């Protein structure tokens, strides 16, 4: 079975400071990893994904994530947070064997203070 852990329910950061939203996963085979964001009263939007290749993945709105196979992690990062980044962030995983559907984490609410 595949699973995702987002250990922090909420992350608070001041505008202009770097942010990290943590994600660890468990999956059979090689992982396909995704980050999605949900703004208030909106559906989920794709941010970035890791399928293969370079461990550092760059995505939308200045976000990036680093795949670390030994630590089974895929933390989301941004060098300088904006107030408009405040939202709910979901990590998701799928293995390249077994069921071909995503498993999502419980979500992390990011609050960026002015």
């Amino acid at each position, binding site marked *: 079975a595949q699973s995702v852990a987002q250990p922090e329910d909420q992350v608070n950061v001041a505008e202009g400071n770097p942010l990290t939203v943590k994600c660890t996963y468990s999956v059979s085979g090689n992982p*396909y990893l995704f980050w999605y964001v949900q703004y208030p009263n*909106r*559906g*989920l939007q794709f941010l970035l*994904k890791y399928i293969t290749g370079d461990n550092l993945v760059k995505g939308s709105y200045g976000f990036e994530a680093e795949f670390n196979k030994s630590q089974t992690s895929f933390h989301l990062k941004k060098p300088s947070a904006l107030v408009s980044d405040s939202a709910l962030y*979901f990590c*998701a995983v799928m293995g390249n064997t077994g069921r*071909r559907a995503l498993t*999502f*984490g419980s979500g992390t609410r990011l609050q960026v203070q002015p």
Partner: protein
Amino acid sequence: DVKVTQSSRYLVKRTGEKVFLECVQDMDHENMFWYRQDPGLGLRLIYFSYDVKMKEKGDIPEGYSVSREKKERFSLILESASTNQTSMYLCASSPLAGGTDTQYFGPGTRLTVL
């Protein structure tokens, strides 16, 4: 732009009613998915479909069924609604068999069962 639409943003039903949630995508995607989103639990997969008339159970299929008679439309059916099915329901689609490509989400339907 990919567009995934859901028939209602808000829905209120009574216990025991049969409820239909409709999802339509306009990009000829093979894959379609139904999730429910609950605070602290993230997104949980109810059912998914890789092709017309195909369906596979997700993690929480009990109390739900689905129908995919046309490629662009994926319906979620609550045979006899119960209060514990009060939730946000999200539909998604993705373009490739195997599911490694990005999922595109609809705006969601907030269902309340009284």
